[in-house]
């Protein structure tokens, strides 16, 4: 007999199928199978929902394209910044609604647009949002990045706030503020040093309250940078000097 002999193959097929048809119980092969309870009605309704959702996504995408085109035209024509800013806010709100990302890093709050960064690896997003963002490779190593919040208001006025903490929970804050056209009034307590750098002046207050905390204000042509925390003079200068 050959295994692939037609008559015997036929008998074999019949044998095996008969074994299945008789009440022989489940084969061991299926002893671990977990049957899925698939919700048939959910599948039907999901398909109907998808049909409508895809229509609204198309409409939203069309609106995004229109708004971004209008923004591009306004930027090219240097039109009133308030209109541009309002459009930018609408764009961000719409984008967040379409993507469902209302807790994402870029949000509209009141008359501001806010970029929040929780991870130093995402600093590029901050730079994208605020091209002149202060960044430093010379933050003392004992301080760990906690957050960066960048706020933008009408007229491209930016305010960026870094928060760092060391292992004793001592804070280091760095604040960068755009100097608006009409100027900005800043006061600083107990200035101990004035240090001229390539781009500006560092006004340093070293331990003005005797608690080990120091602060410094750095004034360049377009921005104020204010640093405060448990940090010494040399560390401040190192951080700001490169800007």
């Amino acid at each position, binding site marked *: 007999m050959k*295994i692939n002999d037609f008559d015997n193959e036929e008998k074999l097929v019949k044998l095996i199928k*008969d*074994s299945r048809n*008789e009440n022989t119980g489940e084969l061991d*092969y299926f002893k671990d*199978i977990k049957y899925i309870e*698939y919700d048939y009605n959910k*599948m*039907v309704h999901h*398909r109907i929902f998808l049909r409508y959702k895809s229509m609204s996504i198309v409409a939203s995408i069309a609106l995004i394209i229109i708004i971004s085109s209008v923004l591009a035209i306004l930027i090219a024509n240097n039109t009133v910044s308030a209109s541009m800013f309002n459009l930018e806010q609408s764009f961000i709100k719409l984008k967040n609604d379409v993507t469902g990302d209302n807790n994402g890093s870029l949000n509209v709050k009141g008359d501001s647009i806010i970029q929040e960064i929780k991870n130093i690896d995402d600093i590029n997003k901050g730079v994208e949002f605020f091209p002149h963002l202060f960044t430093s490779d010379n933050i003392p190593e004992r301080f760990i990045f906690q957050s960066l919040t960048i706020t933008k208001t009408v007229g491209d006025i930016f305010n960026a706030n870094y928060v760092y903490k060391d292992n004793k929970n001592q804070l280091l804050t760095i604040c960068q503020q755009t100097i608006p056209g009409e100027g900005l009034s800043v006061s600083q307590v107990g200035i101990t040093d004035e240090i001229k750098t390539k781009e500006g002046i560092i006004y340093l207050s070293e331990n003005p309250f005797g608690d080990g905390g120091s602060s410094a204000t750095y004034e360049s042509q377009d921005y104020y940078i204010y640093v405060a925390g448990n940090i010494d003079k040399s560390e401040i200068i190192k951080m700001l000097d490169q800007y």
Partner: protein
Amino acid sequence: MDRKNKLFENTYRKYEKDLQKFIYTLTRKDQFAMEEIFQNTLEKAFRNLKYLRDDNKIKTWIFSIAKTEARRYYAANKVNDKYEIDELNEDITITVDNDDDFTEYVTDSILVSQIINSFSEGEQQIFMLHYYNDISFNEISEILNINYNTIRSIHIRGIAKMKKIYREKGRINENK
């Protein structure tokens, strides 16, 4: 279309477990893959229901979609790269010789199930796909992305095992 939806629902409810067992066999007991292929199969079948020409063939049609989805899954995931090596490394020495029809020894078809239960996973998979689900060896080879000769070797080895057991039972019966 409502009529077809109703037909689909009735077919699905009647054969959902069979379909899952079929896919489970195709995926060689991979529960995760079975669930993914099963869902993809149902969604695709439902989406393409309007193209079904013969309502009487809906069950075959759904099962063939399952085969296509399994084929797609294997191609995308390359899960069977090690299949051939594992199966052919098994140390089995069985000779297939030309003697009497061993099936005449068979009086107990329950024993067939027990024999299949004693096969390796690969042998069980091939046997069930070929004998219980009427899939040709060629198609099994295509779906599982395994060399056709390997499929045939596994099948022949299974037959030889079956034959050995039946002959031993036959000798035992003769000696009684």
